[in-house]
């Protein structure tokens, strides 16, 4: 994975990039492992109750085998592409712009999902909108103060008042 800083209109844009084949390989291996576990669990499902039925496990077993059969060539293709790259074969790049901001947003999303029951819907909404705006690069203080509160008010009007949803 490469990390670099390129010039952009707003100053400097950070980005990381990796080869598509690398991502395919990683995903292929994850899917293969998950499909193996899924298939193992599917085989353990109880047999059919009557001779005419196929039981709860047959359909998941077929699906699991199909996932394995499709993930295998994807992984293999990724390995071949990586090995041929040295010989000049084309391999596209996958770029993530502003990786720190994206990672921060992901962490914030997970943290706020976990703290949602403690903080309640409206405080969480204010924190979500405010933090996402800040992470995304918004620096105008009046927008950072008003938009999160307005979003929470909108959510209260639609969900709390109109649809009568009982939030934690």
């Amino acid at each position, binding site marked *: 994975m490469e990390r670099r800083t390129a010039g952009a209109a707003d100053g400097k844009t950070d980005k990381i990039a990796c080869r598509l084949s690398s*991502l395919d390989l990683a995903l292929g291996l994850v899917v293969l492992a998950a499909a193996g576990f899924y298939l193992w669990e599917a085989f353990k499902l109880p047999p059919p109750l009557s001779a005419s039925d*196929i039981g709860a496990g047959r359909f998941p077993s077929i699906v*699991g085998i199909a996932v394995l059969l499709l993930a295998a060539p994807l992984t293999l293709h990724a390995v071949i592409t990586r090995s041929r790259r040295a010989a000049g074969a084309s391999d596209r790049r996958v770029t993530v712009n502003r990786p720190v901001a994206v990672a921060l947003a992901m962490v914030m999303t997970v943290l706020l999902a976990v703290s949602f029951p403690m903080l309640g*819907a409206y405080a969480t909404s204010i924190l*979500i909108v405010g933090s996402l*705006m800040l992470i995304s690069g*918004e620096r105008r203080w009046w*927008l950072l103060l008003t938009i999160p509160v307005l979003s929470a008010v909108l959510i209260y009007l639609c969900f709390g008042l109109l649809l009568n949803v009982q*939030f934690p």
Partner: protein
Amino acid sequence: MIEHLLAGFANFADPAVWIGLLTGTVIGYIIGAIPGLGPSLGVALLIPFTYGVNPVVAIVALVALYAAAEYGGAITAILINSPGTSAAIATAWDGYPMTRRGEAGAALNISIVTSGIGAFLSAILLALTAIPLSEFALTFGPTEYFSLAVLGLSLVSSLSQGSALKGALSMMIGLAIATVGLDTQTGVPRFAYIPELFEGLPLVPVMLGLYAISEVFHMIEEAKGEQPKTAAIKGLLAVPLSTYRSLKGVILQSTVIGYVIGVIPGAGATIASFVAYGFAKRTSKSPETFGHGNPEGVAASETANNAAVSGALAPLLALGIPGSPTTAILIGALMIQGIQPGPLLFTKHPEIPYSIIASLWIGVPVMVFLGLAGARLWAQFANVPKPIIAGTVLAVCFVGAYSSTNSMFPVYVMTVFGLIGYVLRKAEFPLAPIVLALVLADLLEANFRRAMVISKGSVDIFFQHPISLVLLAIAILSFALPALGTLGALVGRRQAEPADLGSK
């Protein structure tokens, strides 16, 4: 049919249905005008607002949003050469050159009016085809239903952008996810390691995660980029009637193309607009002006992408098979309301399909009026900073997911699928097959098991019924043809390589 259709129109006597129509149209325009947000995300975001709402009001609002969002994408395509939706890419090819010539108003007018005409005419085609199709589908047995679901899934996977292998893998991953929960026939828990999973993974939070949360992360990547300001709109209402007379042929042919392509699962509005644009160019008296601001190009693309909306609704209403990712999400909305789409929908819940057809007709003047009257306003939404949109979308997703069952589990599911969706999009895995598989898995498995019971475990049954055989043959071809094409291209490249090397 006429009686039910009149009842569909009569539903509009209820002011709540009008509120649904207007709300859906306005939100659709806004969603469509903001680059990055499309009809799928818009419909997924609106679903939480429809919990507990009358099903007719809910579905009218969602369909209005779908149709208006397809049009809304044209606004930014024409004004700043940045299509709000992928279906408006072809609109930008001639719409933006018109703007650069100072004809932004005319381009917007043509796009709004032709969108309206496309939606209106295709709704007639929908009424004429969906109802007989649903009656024909009543004769289907488990084998036909199974094959139909396989066909729907295979078309969506093979027609998805990018690698067909990744499309197929996405589809199978979707089916695997859909098997989580209690087995509906035996009550055996499958992959349900916690009690919350007994009912399976909740559909709407999964969709919100895959489409909305992953899009939020994408917005953060682009948030600091320069946002182009929309051009001034002049001459919006100064388009003479003679312009439309000259576009008559293009509008009619694009309606038919859009509708037919819309019916094919997976093809959708984007392919419809490209095909209609290409056809209009081939049949035009001045094909050389296409791409340089020819109004025929704008009309062809916009008519077709709106006609595709009705087309995509036909298999949904008649067969319970979604024709596009957005209609797959619409199925989720119907299921939340306790309504199962399919041929029985016309007999069990006639108010739903007929209200949809009526809303498409009634919605046209509303859409055209709001489009023309609010064009300047909709265009301004393209200027809303991405950080604000990202934050607001995420907040609505959180409360929307929570509201689906008034519990935290859907919020956690949505968050996990948001992260998965982002990674899958980066790896160029199409998301539509996952959503369609989630929607169609029950139909697929239940009918597979029924057919196996009938045949005493023999799969020959799927090849003994002619309709089933034809459907499966098309499903196989939909994968085989692109694969053969790729193979042919690879062989061609291999043969060309030595020649290239020789020439160097």
